[in-house]
């Protein structure tokens, strides 16, 4: 845990600051004293065993989950219970899900145009121009008129990334974006994410793709039992993990076929 986060003094260019965040599901504590400051342009990889609270943590940032204690700030806005701040934060934060969650009854293009038109007040023409540009960027513009079910998993996930980018977010959250994909499609999605990282997007990625972590992450954070156990730059994290639980976890995932 970094000293700055622990004392509550976030760096001046912090994009996301979580301080002493605690969350319960009923009696079960899912997050314990989470302190995390993510600077603008920083890329964080979040890993840990199943049930350790990774999804819960990133879902608190865009308020898909509420939390009971502590404070979360996104781009200076303190995330409260009121619709106004929740809305403000969600406009700045894009999210990509494990199962894509594209809208199945709309074409790829409509999927990408909906939110800018409804929440940013973009005109149809503006929304379409943005959507086509971003679909081109994730190399899927030839499929713009198709429906999600007509695309492969990798293509769907790239559409989901483009859809989130259409809102011009300042931060992107990824929750295991490649773990529902067939192995041969993982690379196309990771390449898209790497491209995004190179352009300077602030990113928090829950993933077990350790090659991606090595290549892209500024910091790797390891969670267990709802708490942050260890965080370090990737070279330190992989070569010199300090905690026993981290070593055990790395041993398990790095020895998978």
């Amino acid at each position, binding site marked *: 845990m970094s000293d700055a986060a622990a004392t509550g003094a976030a760096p001046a260019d912090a994009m996301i600051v979580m301080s002493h965040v605690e969350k319960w599901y009923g009696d079960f504590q899912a997050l314990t004293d989470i302190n995390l400051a993510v600077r603008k342009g920083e890329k964080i990889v979040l890993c840990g065993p199943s049930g350790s609270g990774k999804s819960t943590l990133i879902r608190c940032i865009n308020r*898909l989950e509420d939390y009971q204690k502590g404070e979360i700030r996104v781009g200076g806005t303190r995330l409260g219970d009121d619709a106004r701040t929740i809305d403000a934060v969600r406009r700045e934060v894009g999210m990509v*899900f494990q199962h894509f*969650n594209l809208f199945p009854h709309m074409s790829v293009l409509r999927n990408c145009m909906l939110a800018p038109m409804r929440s940013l007040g973009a005109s149809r023409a503006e929304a379409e121009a943005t959507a086509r540009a971003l679909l081109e960027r994730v190399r899927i513009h030839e499929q713009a008129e198709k429906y999600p079910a007509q695309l492969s998993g990798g293509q769907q996930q790239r559409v989901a990334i483009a859809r*989130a980018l259409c809102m011009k977010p300042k931060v992107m959250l990824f929750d295991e974006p490649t773990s529902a994909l067939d192995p041969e499609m993982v690379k196309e999605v990771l390449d898209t994410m790497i491209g995004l990282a190179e352009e300077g997007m602030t990113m928090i990625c829950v993933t077990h793709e350790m090659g991606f972590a090595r290549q892209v992450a500024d910091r790797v954070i390891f969670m267990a039992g709802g708490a942050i156990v260890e965080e370090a730059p990737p070279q330190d994290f992989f070569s010199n993990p300090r905690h026993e639980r981290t070593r055990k976890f790395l041993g398990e995932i790095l020895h998978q076929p």
Partner: protein
Amino acid sequence: MGEAEFLFLLTGLKWTVLLSLVGFAGGGICGLAVALMRSSGIAPLERGTAGYIALFQGTPLLMQLFVVYYGLALVGLKLDAWVAVAIGFTLHASAYLGEIWRGSIEAVPRGQTEAAKALSLHYVARMKDVILPQAIRISLPATIGFLVQLIKGTSLAAIVGFTELTRAGNIVSNQTFKPLLVFGVVGILYFLLCWPLSLYGAHLERRMAVAAR
């Protein structure tokens, strides 16, 4: 049974169709409101609509029409027969459609709501653009099934003085003393109205079963 009698039956059929349309339109609008309240996550609204649905699903339509027409008249509110029937069918249909549509709204995967929220879509856009189009598709077979029930249920409007198809059949049968023939024709008319709907519902159901595989 001559041409005049048959035309009289057709007039009855017209009322049956009109009553069904009124019930379905009123029930559709109010049923949507019931479904949205029932799945709103706001406890008092959910409990209130649950009670409403239980009440109207648990009592006979005949009794509901009776209460609206004669019951309200007893407390000094004399309603026109059309208004009474429209209210009665709307109350009845909105309970059933509300429950059918609540189930369909809840059958849309949760990830859809989450994706819409993450894109900062507010409640109206989330429902109108994302959830309801999918929920309506899911609900179509059951909705059509209910519409068929409603068409047959309109015969109960006879008790507040409507000469819809069944009542018209009754009148003609009393005049001609040919109940078998008359009610045979009445039955065929109902059948011609309901059967295509049932077929269409079954067709949609099959198509959705295929799509779900």
